């Protein structure tokens, strides 16, 4: 099914459908993640891949138009050769791979066992993914927050949400998508019903990351999607009235700083950077609160960034 979807994308010239199919593809892969026991990843992929990415691309498409031109002939041959070579190389590699699902593959025997066996003791949260993400490899996650922040700054620098006066003050000119949706009462009702629970759900995901799947990233994206939904239905201008981009622009920085601050405090307390154990007298408590704090930092950053990017992209089409 995945394969079919992808080939459809390859063939399709109508971008709108391609995007939809891409979203579908993401959704399918998140199901696969689910089957493969990667609940957190599935969650994120559904929210980010199927949700955020798709919406961004749609917003961009609203600006640049939806048709892709028929490809010329010479452009297909070289890519095909490269792709075939790369594919062959990959196939060659698979021949020596440990079979799928084998428990004694090196992946499962070297580093992972400590996470599985001792993270409950050392870090605390039952969700091992959270432990690894936030504590063992907290530095990676810090970098990841940095990536999001960088993308935000980049988009802001290039498109500049809220830096144009027009965003708030100008009357929204007739926009097909927004207009049509505003008139559809059913949609509106459903949306009204949805937005509040989604926001609440986002908060739940945020705090529940310790125990079940979820955490800052997912929560941030979900929170953002609620706002985006609102913006889609009521139009961007009212949404920006609630969350003025000028103010919103501070939040990614604040989130990142919050994350770093936790690490720095740990340093002042005599530990290494991001060594939450040093935060409090009891390393366990330290880990617990440290993880909570950084998850919050990530949540703030991600949510603010996603909303900002969406505003930036859709503002341009006004």
């Amino acid at each position, binding site marked *: 099914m995945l394969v079919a979807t992808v080939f459809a*994308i*390859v063939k399709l010239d109508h971008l709108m459908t391609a995007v939809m199919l891409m979203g579908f593809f993401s959704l399918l892969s998140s199901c696969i993640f689910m089957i*493969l*026991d*990667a609940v957190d990843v599935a969650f994120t992929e559904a929210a980010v891949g199927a949700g955020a990415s798709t919406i961004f691309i749609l917003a961009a498409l609203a600006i640049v138009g939806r048709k892709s031109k028929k490809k010329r002939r010479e452009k297909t041959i070289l890519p095909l050769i490269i792709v075939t070579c790369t594919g062959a190389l990959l196939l060659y590699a698979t021949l020596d791979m440990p079979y799928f699902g084998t*428990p004694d593959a090196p992946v*499962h025997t070297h580093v992972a066992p400590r996470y599985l066996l001792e993270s409950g003791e050392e870090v605390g949260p039952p969700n091992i*993914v959270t432990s690894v993400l936030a504590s063992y490899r907290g530095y990676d996650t810090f970098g*990841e927050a940095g990536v999001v922040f960088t993308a935000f700054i980049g988009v802001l620098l290039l*498109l500049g949400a809220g830096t144009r006066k027009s965003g708030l003050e100008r009357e929204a000119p007739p926009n097909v998508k927004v207009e049509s949706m505003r008139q559809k009462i059913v949609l509106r009702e459903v949306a009204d019903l949805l937005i509040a629970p989604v926001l609440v759900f986002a908060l739940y995901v945020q705090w529940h990351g310790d125990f079940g799947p979820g955490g800052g990233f997912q929560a941030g994206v979900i929170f953002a999607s609620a706002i985006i939904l609102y913006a889609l239905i009521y139009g961007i201008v009212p949404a920006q009235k609630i969350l003025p981009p000028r103010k919103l622009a501070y939040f990614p920085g604040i989130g990142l700083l919050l994350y770093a601050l936790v690490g720095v405090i740990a340093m002042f307390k005599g530990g290494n950077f991001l060594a939450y154990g040093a935060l409090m007298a009891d390393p366990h408590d330290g880990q617990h609160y440290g993880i909570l704090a950084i998850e919050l930092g990530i949540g703030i950053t991600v949510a603010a960034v996603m909303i900002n990017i969406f505003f930036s992209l859709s503002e341009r089409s006004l």
Partner: protein
Amino acid sequence: MIVGLFNYWIVIVLMMAGLYIVMSSGHLVKKIIGLNVFQTSVFIFFISMGAVDGGTAPILKDGFTVFSNPLPHVLILTAIVVGVATTALGLAISVRVFEAYGTVEEDEILAIDRDNREREISVSTVVTESSQNERDQ
């Protein structure tokens, strides 16, 4: 062998399809879609690596002892976010490209640039501040 590696093979097909879209498509946004597909397939590959037969999600609960490997999950969480960040930036750039050129087809852009260069050489004027600067003011 076929069963053991089947999963990987599918992933490879997906990956290559994504890569093909990136390289063959002239439409900038479609390139980004391709990039997304390509990356997502790589994610599936990573996750496949971490799966264990009979395992369960790596959440500690009484009664479960076999978990899938959490490390790839963490890596892929990171990678997904990196992916969406790249997508966002790529879109921002293509929107700007559209505003500057009026098109997002690669060959049309190239043609416009070529025209410009020829004109530049013939008139040899100094490049004036671009439209972007005006926008900023």
